[in-house]
């Protein structure tokens, strides 16, 4: 059986931003669903933990939210990216890619390369 992983601290915010960036305004459930889908169900999200993260991002001005009608005519709170959010995402992305590439290089390195 595949082990589901808990979300690494801090990366959830990045995933939220990434999701909103690609899909445009979404409500909380939508975001949770997407994150699950994109991460290929490998990632276990205690979906409720999303809401404090959304609040924090909103306080930081990265996203904005408002009530609106959902696809099945329920009232839901929709979140959308702001300009600050875009900038933040870009910066985080760069950081993340840099970190990932450094780590990747460590994995690729072989003993004889260093000789």
């Amino acid at each position: 059986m595949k082990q589901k992983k808990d979300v690494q601290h801090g990366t959830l915010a990045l995933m939220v931003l990434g999701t909103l960036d690609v899909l445009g305004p979404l409500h909380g459930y939508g975001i949770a669903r997407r994150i699950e889908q994109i991460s290929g169900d490998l990632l276990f999200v205690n979906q409720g933990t999303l809401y404090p993260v959304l609040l924090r991002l909103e306080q930081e001005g990265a996203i904005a939210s408002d009530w609106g009608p959902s696809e099945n005519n329920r009232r839901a709170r929709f979140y959308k990216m702001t300009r600050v959010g875009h900038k933040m995402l870009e910066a985080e992305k760069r950081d993340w890619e840099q970190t990932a590439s450094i780590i990747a290089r460590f994995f690729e390195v072989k003993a004889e390369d260093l000789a």
Partner: protein
Amino acid sequence: MRALKRLFTRLQNFVIGLRGDDRLREEMEQHLAFQTDENVRAGMLPEEARRQAILKLGPVQVIREHYHSQETLPILENLVRDFRYAVRRLLNSPSFAITAILTMAFGIGATSLVFSIFYAVVVDPYPYRDAEHIVQIGFVGKQGLRGFMAVNTVDFETVRHASTVADAMQTDFSDPITTVAGYPEDIEIARLSGNAFKFLGVSPLFGRTLTAADEDQHFVVLGYRFCRSHFQCDPTVLGRSVDLDHQQFSVVGVMPPRFAWEEAAAFVPLSRDANPEEAHPLFLRPRKGVSAIELSTQMLTLVRGFVLTNEGVELPAEIHLVTMPFGQLRGDLTQKRIVLLFAAVCILLVIACTNVSILLIGRTSARHQEFQIRHALGASRRRIAHQVLAEAVLTSCCGGLLGVGLAYIGVAVLRSSLDKSFLPAEAFLSVNVWVLAFSTLVSVGTGLLFGLMPGLQAAKSLFAPRLTSQFVSRSIGNRRSQRTLIGSQVALALVLLAIAGASVRSFIALYKMDMGYNPHRVLEFRLPLSTGQNASWTARVQYRTRLREALRHISGVMDASIDEAMPTGGGMQMEYGLPADRYGADMDARMPRADFEFVDSHYLSLLDIPVRSGRGLSQADQEAAEPVALINQTFARHLFGVESPLGHFLRVPPLVAGYEDFARPPHPTQMVRIIGVTGDVRAAWLPGAPPRETIYLSESLFATSHSLLVHLRTSGDPYTVLETARHVINQVNPAQPISNPRTLDEILSQDLRSRDRWLAVLTGIFSSSALFLAAIGLYSVVLFAVGKRSQEFGLRIALGAARSEILRVALFSELKVVLFGIGAGALLVLFLQKFMASVMELAPINLWFLFPACAVMLVVSAFAAYLPARGAASVDPMHALRSE
């Protein structure tokens, strides 16, 4: 930036009390609904679908709490809650609250009061712009400071534009006679160069200040005090005319109260044309980045040039210049005293804190069970420690509030009762913003300080093994910290006692000191002489004799002297030389300095200054202006060793040169013959200092046209003869004013000893309070200790122990700690002793004083322990055992 924005939002949420709980609930409800729908679509039964949805969402309560803590600032919320709780707790136990708050109020009040003095005297004594950079240039020779740089108005311009000087001003004094008040009186006037007001940078209360354009005008700017005492101090005073030495000056401005430059009553322009060659003292402000040495080096070059051009002589090679910061000469010792006072009051504050700490430890240990239950219910150690801290800070802040009130009262009392000379004239004692900020800081700081130990105790006690109320182990930690505190309290109280002892002793030493003259029942007043009056030398000398004889015959006056000498110190320092036949020519160049006292034939006998050998001045010497002098013993020993100085000659400066209105005595000479040796006279404020070298000359050699001093020795209260003296003088000369009548005792205590008197009074108050607080601390510790052991005592009594035995046990339970504290305190005192004597120039702490101080400490401690111990001994065994 983002973090800041977030903090701001959260702070805002906290303040407006926003609760986003409803929003979260709705969002989560929607979330569940979406998930349930999806699960149903996937084929689940509705109930199962909802259950799965809830599982997937996670623990709702935890999420809500997390959400809430993100939303606002939990630290602040807890703080508010802790304070609310602390208020309730304090209200529940008013006796503790009152004791603790009063103790803190006292500590913080005293500290704030002393801080306000400290601020007024040390931090911000002068209202002048950039006052800490104003300097005077001092001449230093082999004997130390000889005087200050003074230049004439022509050279002044050179100094002002020197490369190291940012700006400079000149000031000089005169004490003209004015009749503003309806009778003649002399007032102190400062004559200021045109740029002086700009240099000092103080704007006037009304009207305007003097500028360079006013230099030759008859304009006057009044000082606030003079304006208050002689006019209604309002803008109508502008344009009025003031008579100064028969010249009319028009009032153009009034300065604010703190502008008290050289304590002058009024300010007039220093005119250039009166005598361009006359030198006036100089104040300057160096350019930024110029060091003191660079400044004095350049000034030395300039001064050499000035002396060579103006006087045609070289400046003696050993003279060098130093920069003296403005106010340093006047305030140095006072500042040291105030720093000491501040240190003393800080010790008092620490003692007060320790006291409240002890009380609080007793309280927290009683709440031990409550803390354990709270801990068991999930309160973290930090939260519990925070609660105790909150209680401490609340107590100290209440105390601080009350303390500021006390400081206000104290400042009001001190302002009316402190002697004028205690503070610089410009200093303004008040509870200002800085004092309030200081008090706030101290309140919160002390709260944290004395809450720390009880807080740690509370947190530590959580690890005690059981949730029971009765066991001993927990109290051991508390007892230990209480004992540490009580020990340090005793030690600090002893240090404070020693400081107070040293201050009181140096003050008593001042009083008891044999100054070499008898200052009791001597009235002194000044006779300002109008310029030009009694123009000839003979007339001047006769005027003095006439006045003296008239005064001597007043009933109640035992003797009278008309002179220009100040036995209390502050006489004129001048250079003298020795004749070349004895010491060689180079001796003249060295120009040693001595105090010159111009006296008449009655002065020495009036003040009981003994003539050790030779003879005193006679009336004949005076009337003939015989060039004779007396010198004091120290001077004689310095100059002549064991040899008798009688008959030797001294060269004195040309006394009459430089005064436009001098009257030439019959034999103008600079050589005076020594006819007698007098006893030494000591300065009244420095018990250890060696007596200064003094020369007594007949005042008639000089016959000043400026002002004279009158000294009257009376048989009773000196002031009773004052009215008669006024009357008698009026009969001799109706135009002769009298100013500033005071007794020598008053001058000594108000001007010269007030610093030490106030230090003694305040440290005395502080140390007795410290003793009292230490006693209260000990009392509560013993009370706490015997309270803990009341069952044990009950049991002992039930088993047949004598009550006296119980009393003994209870009484001596804390004795070891007290003894330890006394030992530590004594060591501290020994450590501080050297510092006190050398830096503070106080009488050294007498080691013999330590014994009585320790004894007092012990007796007070014994009394403080006795009261609760007696309570313990009278415990009813049945009652004590039943409370199990």
